[in-house]
């Protein structure tokens, strides 16, 4: 475990409420130097509030947060110089050109494009051919790259990205994560949030966030292992009837659709997997699902997340 003093982000018991809504409830974790850390969870879970506290835009009601060793309440001006932030919506000026946007944000942080060029080059080089185009006319992926360039041009020591891939096509998303890995391998610490479970695997460690709480923090592979029971993939035709039939099975613990398959877990922990497969197959066959396959699989992060969400008091079953 890295000591707290060298951790770029340390959050302890942070709580934030807006009126009667609890946005963050006793959140504690830290981000290690040089790490690509993911905050994963559905919209409205408190990820943006957490970013706003880390960027000194909001003050926590309780608890403490330090960024680069500085307190977010007391040392806001010091933190603001050293952090790069990309808010949820790509905040660019649509009536300014690509280059004008970048130049403006560079000046605002007391630097120039030229001074920061080597750090933004891998990203900016891709959009530089369009530098005279208005930012409002860029595609989603290009806007995202421009926003990232703007957040990086002043050589921040910590990069905070709030849902950078939301509303961007699949190819651009993959490219973007490759860029983040390049930045991380150059030594930059990155905290990134995403509502997409499949992106969690691209982080070194992830925190699962829901309803203002951190459900789990671990490396992505280990989070899947937190799934409490053996997990099975069921493929049946017709699909909808298969779901209905599985849910009606008396020993079903969970049934969730995943793409074109279903993820099933059994409530009887003592049962051996082959036994479970045999019983479920028999049950489905009597229910008229003749064409089906079933096999045991390793649970992924999304399975774990669904299970952890189900454990939350008041969460929908």
């Amino acid at each position, binding site marked *: 475990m890295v000591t707290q003093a060298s951790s770029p982000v340390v959050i302890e018991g942070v709580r934030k409420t807006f009126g009667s809504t609890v946005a963050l409830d006793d959140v504690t974790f830290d981000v290690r130097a040089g790490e690509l850390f993911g905050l994963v969870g559905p919209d409205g879970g408190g990820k943006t509030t957490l970013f706003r506290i880390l*960027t000194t835009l909001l003050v926590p009601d309780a608890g403490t947060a330090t960024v680069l060793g500085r307190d977010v309440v007391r040392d*806001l001006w010091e933190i603001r110089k050293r952090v790069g932030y990309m808010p949820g919506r790509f*905040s660019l000026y649509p*009536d300014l050109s690509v280059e*004008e946007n970048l130049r403006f944000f560079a000046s605002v942080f007391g630097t120039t494009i030229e001074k920061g060029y080597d750090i933004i080059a891998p990203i900016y080089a891709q959009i530089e051919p369009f530098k005279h185009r208005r930012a409002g006319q860029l595609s989603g992926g290009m806007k995202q790259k421009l926003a990232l360039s703007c957040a990086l041009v002043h050589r921040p020591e910590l990069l905070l990205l709030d849902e950078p891939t939301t509303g961007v096509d699949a190819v651009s998303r993959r490219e973007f994560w490759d860029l983040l890995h390049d930045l991380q391998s150059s030594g930059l610490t990155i905290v990134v949030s995403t509502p997409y479970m499949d992106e969690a695997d691209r982080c070194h460690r992830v925190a699962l966030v829901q309803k203002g709480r951190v459900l789990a923090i671990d490396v992505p592979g280990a989070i899947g292992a937190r799934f409490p029971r053996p997990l099975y993939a069921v493929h049946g035709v017709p699909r909808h009837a298969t779901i209905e039939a599985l849910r009606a099975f008396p020993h079903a613990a969970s049934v969730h659709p995943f793409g074109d398959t279903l993820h099933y877990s059994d409530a009887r922990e003592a049962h051996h997997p082959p036994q479970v497969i045999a019983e479920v197959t028999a049950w489905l066959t009597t229910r008229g699902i003749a064409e089906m396959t079933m096999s045991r699989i390793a649970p992924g992060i999304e399975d774990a997340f669904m299970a952890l969400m189900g454990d939350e008091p008041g969460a929908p079953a």
Partner: protein
Amino acid sequence: MRTPERLHALAAFVVKELRHILRDRQTLVILLLLPLAQVVLFGFAIRTDVKDIRLAIVDAAPDDASLALRAHFTGNGRFRVVATAAMIEVIEPLFRRGQADVALVIAPGLARALADGTPAQLQLITDASNPNTGTTIQAYAGAVIGAWQIALPGARQGVVIEPQVRMRFNQSLESVNLFVPGLISLVLTLVTAQMTAISLSREKERGTLEILLVSPLRPWQIILGKVAPYLLLAFANVVTAMVAAWLVFQVPFRGSLALLLAASTLYALVGLALGVLIAARTNSQRTAMMGSMIGTMLPSTLLSGMIFPIASLPWPLQLISNIVPARWFIVIVRGIMLKGAGIVHLWQELLVLAVMLTVLLVVAIKSFRARLA
């Protein structure tokens, strides 16, 4: 950040704002042509001075004196005689049908009364369904009677007792002269308060304000960078309005242009501070627009003395008018333009604006916090 970097960041902010303004062509054209359009519109269409006043004359027993008086009215370009009658009953239907604006009733024996020195009876009846025009017509008619009285042979003067109203500084009673200062204040309010409020709340709506806040920019840099370009625009507008007023309506300019521009800068800063305040307290462009409309445009038009004289407002509104910056600014501009007044005469009004600016700046910077919410 060191000072040169702070200034560099501020300069970059101003350049960025100028680009926003210059690239929004439609808004820019509207803002630049607005003072011209307003001066022309108000000057030609919405003036309160009255031309072509329809006059009914009741003269039961015409004599030398009454004919001379009638000649004064017909000789004056503003009056047009629509009826001449011997009986007062004639005028009532004329008023009802809206065919006369004013009636002059001359009692029989005017010449004899003048000769004898006994009271002569003249009556002016005005259609006051529009009190503003009614008052103006009354004043014009009074002025014609006054002129007639002065033209009487010396010995007979003072026989007819008539209050004489003389308009100082605006002898020709041209309402356009009084309107132009009001228009300048209106245009300034629009480009300063309203445009700043809209432009700042646009940054809020787009989310760009979030990045500006996270940056090392201090609130004063953001505010100053935001308002400086609009100050330039305000200057252009004042000059356009003045030139338009002078070219189209020959509105006189008797005072110091430097003093006027200085006062306009002060007033523009008050408006800019108001705009920042409104934007800080609202969350969307739409509410900011409504807020600046109700908070600045309406009082600047209605409670400033631009259209309705302050003295004719009910006392609670008179009281409120004291906190309307336009009320003081209009006094200053009228003073400079029409009376050639200098700083010696206007220091009180200027001081009021300066105090308002200080208070608003403090409140605006306080409500424009370095954090969200």
